[in-house]
């Protein structure tokens, strides 16, 4: 599903370029959930952004294959239409654009790009109603400009609601758990679990093992110093929770 090989990514930092990802590789198969953990500033969001196609990052080496295709050649909207989804660590406010309007534009753009019929308004309303109920998003929220004045937790729920509506093949969840209260964490995790299936994969970026109690990963990767320095089963998350990242920072 997602195959990342020897990925090197740099950013312009002032007047020089700085390498953030330094030869990162892993392979996520269909139906699998992988977790990525790592210290602040280690490049986790950078990875998510590069997968989704954000400007401002230079891929100097390596490749990202999604369902066999080279995504680095694709525009962000093409990646989305192909089934990639990024739940943002910091969802962006778009003043004046009602959440509903945004969702409809997103769904119909993707459908159009895939050569599918656009949704009629009643079809769309029904889908939104179901998704928002599942994730406990109140209907007033849908009329408000997207993310504007939403609380941290509300923003995260909104991201997962978008994921539920867009039904991606691969979802990258960037710290979706941070900012969620205990109940919300459960609701959101249930939302994610409901979408799990043999043809859908997840890359879950998190700092806390607690999320992984709800969303059981097949593999846990530790990202430090721009590389995956260790991979293992779910027990690795528990180990990190106890010992921290000190040993990896030394070797990185």
């Amino acid at each position: 599903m997602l195959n990342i090989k020897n990925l090197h990514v740099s950013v312009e930092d002032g007047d020089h370029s700085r390498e953030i990802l330094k030869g990162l590789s892993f392979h996520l198969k269909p139906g699998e959930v992988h977790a990525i953990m790592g210290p602040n500033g280690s490049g986790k969001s950078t990875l998510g952004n590069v997968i989704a196609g954000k400007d401002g990052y230079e891929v100097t080496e390596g490749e990202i294959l999604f369902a066999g295709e080279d995504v680095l050649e694709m525009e962000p909207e093409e990646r989305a239409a192909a089934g990639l989804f990024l739940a943002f660590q910091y969802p962006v406010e778009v003043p004046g654009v009602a959440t509903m309007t945004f969702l409809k534009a997103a769904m119909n753009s993707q459908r159009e790009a895939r050569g599918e019929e656009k949704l009629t308004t009643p079809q769309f309303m029904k889908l939104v109603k179901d998704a928002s109920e599942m994730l406990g998003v109140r209907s007033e929220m849908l009329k408000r400009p997207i993310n504007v004045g939403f609380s941290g937790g509300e923003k995260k729920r909104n991201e997962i609601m978008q994921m539920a509506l867009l039904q991606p093949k691969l979802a990258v969840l960037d710290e979706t758990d941070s900012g969620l209260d205990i109940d919300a964490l459960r609701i959101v995790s249930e939302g994610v679990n409901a979408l799990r299936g043999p043809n859908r994969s997840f890359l879950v970026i998190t700092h806390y093992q607690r999320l992984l109690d709800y969303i059981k990963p097949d593999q846990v990767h530790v990202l430090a110093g721009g590389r995956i320095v260790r991979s293992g089963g779910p027990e690795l998350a528990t180990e990190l929770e106890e010992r921290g990242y000190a040993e990896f920072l030394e070797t990185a």
Partner: protein
Amino acid sequence: MPAVQETIDQVAAIDVDKYKYGFVTDIETEKAPKGLSEEVIAFISAKKGEPEWMLEWRLKAYERWKTMKEPDWAALEYPPIKYNELYYYAAPKMADNPKSLDEVDPELLRTYEKLGIPLKEQEILAGVRKAGEPSDLDEMGGEGYTSGKVAVDAVFDSVSVVTTFKAELAKAGVIFCPISEAIREHPELVKKYLGSVISPADNVFATLNAAVFTDGSFVYIPPGVRCPMELSTYFRINEQNTGQFERTLIIADKGSYVSYLEGCTAPMRDENQLHAACVELIALDDAEIKYSTVQNWYPGDAEGKGGIYNFVTKRGDCRGDRSKISWTQLETGSAITWKYPSVILRGDDSRGEFYSIAISNGRQQIDSGTKMIHLGKNTSSRIISKGISAGRSSNTYRGLVQASGRAKNARNFTQCDSLLIGDKCAAITIPYVETKTGTAQFEHEATTSKISDDQLFYARSRGIGEEEAVALIVSGFVQDVLQQLPMEFAVEAKALISVSLEGSVG
């Protein structure tokens, strides 16, 4: 490369030549000789079958105009206008006064079809809108929309070709007709109000208009009447090198209400076309006038060649106590826009509003804003201006809020927001405030922002293409003004925002 740079490059490569409405209708026209003279004015007046007093009024304005100069304070650059190279009258030739659409030149109807004007839509013509159809409006907070009727007075070049809904309006006592007809049929009203808000000596363009105006609409709403439908005019400039000099006069008598929609589209041209319209609104005691404009005239090609010069004088007079006048405009077209719809708050407790969206792209230049002149007690005004500049355009907001010594407790709130797309465009905000009373409360807020890469990426990562993402973000930026437009216009307006931003990115 960073998105901003990309946007700039794409804007530089903009192809405004793709102007959607750039086509020419082939209809025989009857023209006055080129240039401006007493003879030409007499020709126009005769063509319109005007009474003697009207011709005198025009000639007086013409005498005055010959002594006037174009203002130089606006942030606009354009070559001198060659007034003697223009034609001041052109009328499509057709059978005398069509009684119904069947009698209208089919070529003209096809033109309107291309423009997407709902003139031919039977339902609209019959005054029935498809009821209860769920649409994008649901998401725009369109609740509370009740009026489903629009009366259309189509102005093709200089002559009003067809007027619909006359009967129903007449039943309500509403007069809605071409101004030339009003001059003949309702001289007492015209004499009383014409030029009473914008004097024929007001400014060089208004004076020119007074001398040579060819058509436009006349509206009179009798006391206590709420106009049963929204009144609408689609203007269109067709004949090459024809200056358009529309004159519109709207009078809302005591306790009446009217909402008026003005829409404009012009076909593509090589030479600049001068447009100098005058719109006068008069609201008597407790009356309300809502005037909405969607303007998308040809903006010129990528080098800025060939677009419309739009020098418009629009002014409303809240002549009665507790009266209200509200201007809402969406300006997307023209090479040059010089336009300041204003309100004179003469009556006590009167209210003036100005809601504006001005989008400039390519090489367009906009110098626009409003004037709120507070003369009466407890008068209030509100100004919300949203300017969007892309390409190499310049977009100036120029506004005046003024309170006289009598205007006790005058209040104004002004908000001017500018959004920049790329870094070759300019947005300028010039607010003037003058008050002669210590009790006035004037508030002003202004912001300038750039379209953010993060917002663009957020939308694109959800599958929304770059151009649509820009249009979506821009429509969010202008949402509070968009909401002021009648629903008939809001949908058109949204579409127009997308069209006018085409080429501002990928």
